[in-house]
């Protein structure tokens, strides 16, 4: 395996001359490339931890490009997919994009177009992985809170004062202050505003609870 920082471009195409030519092009452009003649062979080798992107032919016997896309999605893969197709089939491209394809290119594809798409896809993968990391970090921090602290957190984010929270939870203001300090510390935030922003972000992106 290459170093974690070096992204790998996976190429899957059943037609050998195209596969070879794309590998050559990417190679010259300085990318690390791994090529496979079928979706099945790619799946057998695939490591979800690898940074990079997938250049995928749509029309292939047995398992085709769109089916591989669905399969990867089910596996929770974040690998961005650039589709290559011989025909500009609109329903196919719509379906691919809806399923989160990074790009949909029609053969023959120019080098600039392909390389730009690959660079963009790798950036996307990086960003997604970063987000993914932040989210899991946030979840980890959230998981360190006690149930009482979670209740306090919810009330703080809802914009309530300590006195109100104490009233709601049936305790004294002093106790709430201690819980609140623990929450701020465990969530590693400096201000309430920062805490609210953090919670809102992940509430939008997904479920907090």
């Amino acid at each position: 395996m290459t170093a974690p920082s070096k992204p790998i471009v996976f190429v899957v195409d059943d037609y050998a001359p195209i596969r070879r030519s794309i590998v050559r092009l990417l190679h010259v452009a300085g990318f690390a490339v791994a090529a496979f003649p079928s979706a099945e062979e790619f799946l057998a080798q695939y490591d979800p931890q690898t940074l990079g992107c997938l250049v995928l032919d749509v029309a292939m016997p047995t398992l085709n490009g769109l089916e591989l896309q669905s399969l990867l999605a089910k596996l929770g893969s974040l690998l961005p997919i650039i589709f290559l197709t011989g025909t500009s089939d609109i329903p196919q491209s719509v379906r691919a994009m809806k399923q989160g394809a990074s790009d949909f290119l029609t053969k023959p594809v120019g080098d600039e177009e392909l390389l730009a798409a690959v660079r963009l896809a790798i950036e996307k993968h990086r960003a997604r992985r970063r987000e993914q990391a932040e989210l899991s970090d946030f979840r980890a921090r959230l998981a360190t809170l006690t149930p009482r602290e979670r209740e306090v957190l919810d009330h703080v984010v809802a914009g309530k004062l300590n006195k109100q929270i104490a009233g709601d939870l049936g305790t004294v203001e002093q106790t709430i202050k201690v819980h609140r300090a623990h929450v701020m510390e465990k969530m590693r935030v400096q201000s309430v505003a920062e805490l609210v922003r953090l919670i809102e972000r992940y509430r939008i992106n997904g479920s907090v609870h």
Partner: protein
Amino acid sequence: MSWITVVWSMNGAACLTLAAFYFVLWCNQRKSWMHLAFSGSAVAGAALTGFELALLRAQTTEQYGAILRWAQLPVWGLVVSLVVFVRLYLRAGRPWLAWTVCCVRTLALILNFLFIPNLSYREITSLRQVSWWGGETVSVPVGVTNPWILVAQLSSLLLIVFLIDATITVWRQGDRKRALRVGGGLSLFSLIAVGQALLVVWGIIQVPFLVCFALLGLLAVMGYELCSDVFRAAQLARELEASDKRLNLAADSADVGLWEWDIVRNEIWITDRGRSLFGFAASEKLDFDRFRSRLHPEDRESVLNAVENSLRTGAEYRSEYRVVLPNGQLRWMAGRGHVECNGDGQPVRMRGASLDITKHKQAEEEAARQRNEMAHLSRVFTLGELSGSIAHELSLPLSAILSNAQAAQRVLANGKAELADIREMLYDIVSEDKRASEVIRRLGFLLKKGEVQQHCLSINGVVEDVLNLVRSDLVNQKVTVDTDLTRNLPTVTGDPVQLQQVLLNLVVNACDAMAGCKAPECMLLIRTGIENGSRTVIVSVTDHGTSVPEEKLEEIFEPFFTTKQTGMGLGLSVCRTIIAAHRGKLWATNNPDCGATFQFSLPIRATNGQAQMINNRTIANNGLD
């Protein structure tokens, strides 16, 4: 001059004239023996008339006896020739009776020359001079009758019996007029002659022999009959001429030229219409080489083969060929004829007719042209449906070419060029370019709108070409193709484009029928083979999709029948027309489990080169303006 001399001479002359006339007739028609028999009778009649005149004028008994003796000679001739005439002309009378008459008469003739003075009289004692009208005197014999004359009279009696018997036979055969006229007439005049002679010889009546008038009557009856034959022949000749005219008129109006080829002399007779059909001048003398020179060079061999075959086997001559007229115009002709052989089985004559079939050929050509037009239209439509697949087929090599070329540019720009890398890239570029060209060639081949070609081709090659063309379409539709192609199949004759079109249609239809299928069942089976026992190649396309309703298995081949949203409904009907033009069959059956099988048969290429050439021409119909 004495009137007796005049009358008897005239009688004799009449007999001689008849004899001469019929002798000449017989000379022209040697097989007509009855004419010779009649001529013989007439000569005998003339001779008898002469002897009779001499008897009338005889002065001494010795003279009279000698004349009467020699007169038996023409009597013998007359009897024999009369018997022969009746046997030949009436085809009646008992043969044994005929032989008996002749033998007894011959016996009488022999006896006649043994007795002196003759068979009639043992002795002629005197000649009585009898006065006749106009102061003429004639000799009448007086003497002792020879009893052996009975032999001669028996012969005469038998002759009359023979004649009556022949008359009855003819009467019974239904030809009553003829029986009465010939049989009755001959019997009557014979009876008169024989009766008169008998009465004179036995001295019952005292008159000279006067049989020559009865003989003239006898000859008149025979002559009249033969004459009517001549009239009938003339009538037949007139009818034949009229019938000939009618035939010529019919032949002319049907644009048929009638001809006759005398093979021995190599002369050709042909009707005027026939001459104009072949562009021959009215006065031109024709032989086989002249006919041959009119034939289109490409058709000469087949016509000569047909003629030779006909001469060799005696079979009917038949051929279709083009004639090049002197003005360069082409004309299609159909010839037919029969060979006539002589007794040794050698062909001596060929008679036949030649028909102008140019219009028919033009119509055939027009029909073929329209069929091709239709086939082309349908082909373009089918390829239109496949355009996505074809574009994909083209995009593959183009894509590889572009990426390789651009990779090479980048390598060169980097300045880190490895020659080996560049070489590999260029190699791929070249081979992919070839592949793209191949796709275009195949496509252009099917889109081309050309004349129908007749090639000797392998049906497996056609199957492989079509599968190459639709490969990516099949991949897209997830159709697996299974082929079961029999190796070393005999070749068929046909148009490769049209046969590919048929197979393409069947494959596309099969894929459409399997549109809703899941992967494992989505299988297409293409099979080639020879039909058992018969001389045809079979190609079948089996799908596992939806079956065709039983009642529609024939209807699907009708024009404008379609189940598709976008279809024209012409595909299968055009396919059937194409296969029919290749003298094959196309039909559909449902499979026992699911789906349908479409198959077509094509006749295996004939080994006989000549038959092939003719067939090619009827299908292709080229070269006519």
